[in-house]
């Protein structure tokens, strides 16, 4: 009986050790909530807003930055515009695009039409892209969102934006990424949602996870006060962190409601 109890106690302590390590030694990360449905109001859409929608989709629902980032998983897209004419003439090109707009659109829905050297699926000799069709599967962009991303990528490369802003509403069952088309949107619930919606993780690390284009924010609250954090969000050019490119969008102060901004500042200041 003594042995029996010793074995029980030993096993419970061991399990407790694993449990404690997982709960107290590992950062508490709340996974992003599943994407929810929202409506796009095209009534008051301007080209600037349409490009902004594209950027939001690119950094958020489109999950493009999972691979198109500085880690080298997929080609960076800032040079896309410059490379397109050569790609369209490349013997390896298998698509039907004739200009930049149709090439970008084709790359989104038929990524294997042209695979940049070194980025193909292993064993396919760069004939097959690992990128999924963005209109299918778990990404599931609708036509409006695809066009918005196309406009954003044209704009990103400094080309003239030739995409026409759609006039019809997306199919009712399709999910749209944002309500950037105008009209008040419902406020975000919490800081996590704000971070997910604004795709902050594309450039910043939270709890050690995220991009590296911007400063790591995992413990930012330990070194910066609320005033600094607020200013860094609404006017990122005011205090640029050394060693990072000046790519932080300057319009978060416009995009966020005042209560949301404070919620985000409170959250960041608590990251210690």
């Amino acid at each position: 009986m003594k042995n029996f109890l010793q074995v029980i106690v030993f096993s419970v302590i061991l399990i407790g050790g694993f449990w404690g390590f997982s709960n107290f030694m590992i950062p508490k990360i709340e996974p992003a909530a599943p994407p929810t449905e929202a409506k796009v109001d095209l009534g008051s859409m301007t080209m600037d807003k349409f490009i902004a929608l594209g950027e939001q989709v690119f950094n958020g629902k489109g999950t493009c930055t999972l691979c198109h980032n500085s880690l080298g998983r997929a080609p960076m897209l800032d040079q896309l515009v410059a490379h397109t004419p050569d790609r369209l003439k490349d013997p390896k090109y298998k698509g039907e695009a004739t200009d930049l707009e149709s090439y970008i659109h084709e790359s989104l829905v038929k990524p294997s039409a042209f695979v940049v050297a070194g980025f193909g699926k292993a064993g396919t000799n760069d004939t097959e892209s690992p990128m999924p069709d963005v209109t299918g599967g778990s990404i599931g962009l609708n036509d409006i969102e695809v066009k918005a991303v196309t406009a954003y990528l044209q704009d990103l490369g400094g080309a003239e934006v030739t995409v026409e802003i759609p006039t019809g509403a997306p199919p009712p069952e399709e999910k749209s990424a944002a309500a950037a088309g105008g009209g008040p949107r419902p406020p975000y619930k919490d800081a996590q949602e704000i971070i997910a919606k604004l795709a902050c993780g594309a450039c910043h690390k939270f709890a050690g996870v995220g991009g590296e284009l911007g400063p790591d924010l995992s413990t930012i609250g330990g070194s910066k006060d609320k005033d600094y954090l607020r200013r860094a969000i609404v006017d990122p050019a005011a205090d640029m962190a050394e060693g990072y490119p000046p790519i932080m969008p300057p319009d978060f102060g416009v995009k966020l409601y005042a209560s949301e901004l404070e919620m985000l500042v409170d959250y960041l200041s608590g990251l210690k």
Partner: protein
Amino acid sequence: MRLRYLAKIGGMSLLLALLMSLFAVDLPGLDASSVAFAEEAPAAPEAAAAAGETGAEGEEAAGPAPIVAPKLTAEDYPTIPGFNGRVVVWMVAQLHLWFAAFVLAVPIFVFIIEAIGMKTRDKRYDDMAYEFIKVSITAFSLTAILGGLLFFSLMIFYPHLMGYLIKIFDDSMLYYALLFFAESAFLYLYYYGWHWLQGGFKKWVHLTLGLLLNAAGSTLMLLANSWTTFMMSPSGMDASGAFVGDITTAMGNFLWNPINIHRIVANVAFGGGVVGAYAAFKFLSAKTRELRAHYDWMGYTANIIAISALLPLPFAGYYLTAEIYMYSQQMGITLMGGIFAWLFIIQAVLIGALFLSANYYLWCGMGRSDGAGRYTKYIKYIAIVIVAAFLVWFTPHTLILTNAEQKALGGQYHPYLGALGIMPAKNTAVNLMINCTLLSFILFRRANRVPTVSWAKAGNAIMIGMFAAGAVNILFLGIYHGYFTNTVYKVAASIPQVLTTFVLIVMSLIIDSRMYKGAKEVGPMHWGRIPNRAQYALFILAVSFTWLMGLMGYIRSGIRQHWHVKDIFRDASPDAFTPTLGFAADVVSIATLIFMAMVIFVFWLSQVSATKTAATGYWKEG
């Protein structure tokens, strides 16, 4: 009247068979939860129209009608006040899978041990094999009970998902039920016929029964795996996401074989671990020297089985992960680069515990031999490398620091230790850890023997050279490609590292077994001459394996995120979010406690079954 009675029995049997057929269905609620029968769910107009069109074409082509995943809402998920459907299904599925893994693994090595006994004509092997299978008999019943519970839980909380999967896998589920009966029949014949089918031809018949038992059990697992992997990497879909394939298409999905291989190897390691815990428990309870010797030998064998499977397990895991990346880069990045990235630090702790305890048991076990003194001086070096490798694996990429600490450090990355946080360092560490365990195993094997072959010195020199060259190669690949090349090479360098380890395992075992063929024994092995604390290493092995399996089940299921069937069948339940690591640790810990309690119950039953009480004066005399 009698005919009607038989018909009732037949009907009930068929119903039971169908219930059993659903035992090993995956835990769907983990990442999301909701689905509806295609015909019941209010599918979106476009999808319904598309389905109708495709269906019409399919009928014209005399093919099966497409099966469309329904689009559900939170209201489509039944709820029971006081119960969270996802947690119930998660917990029951995990318990079922643990027991299923155990009862599938034990017959594999029982069959091998019985065959060794037949080959060597050493009855100790036969007795031990029988004791192993005896332990699994009660566990088999518990597996079936938990399978039934899982089926009911799934039908209650996820009826639409079950409907969808049944429509796709219908025939295979029937075969599953039939195979379950076949497996039960083979198991009972194998176990109850053990002492009857002894000697000569009868023994061969018995061994054949063991083979059939394993064939039925393994096929069952392959079938159940196909349901699970279909949810991760569905195949046979048309452009609209409707299933238009047949059972073979659905079963042969992209991740089926990688999971099959990983599970078979892991099951054997897990089974060895649990049986080792049984032997350890019996060893600690043994009152006589003979019993201690017997259970020491049993624990040693179980540990060897566990280690034999533990060594190739990282390779199987690596292959599975590579295939996940190959199937979907997005899923791969979710697995390794998102919220789950921190899970691999927890995994490192658990695998470190597994390797350290397995090695510790081997080192303690060398005390059974009078010739072990020749090798004990090397153990401290092996221990240092294993602990160092464990610490490297355990080092996180970024550190959780206070403000003052961060200021003192100059950032979140430690100037020296930060370099150990990336994958090349961890790949290097795990390969060195595996090779050190291999070295422990080889020293353990040699402890009581002296080689008699003329080329023993040359053989030793070759092995030392191989291990040295292997270590240098692994370190070079890890350091050069990990820190002086780009990301692509950082990842790619792990392949030659793994191949180096693989070659070392195969070559060293071949050379060592040749070298020690016909070797002289230093003296008799002193079975039972092992400290009690070594038995606790076997408990660590069993508990860590159990907890680790639970944790990895969470990530395997969790990478589907908010999908029941990835990219095809959306989870619309209120639980469609990925639970946090902390919550997963809560569920896994509670489930492990329940599992261990049930396993101890199984151990106790096997002990009770061998106990006889002389009820003097109770029965009539004469």
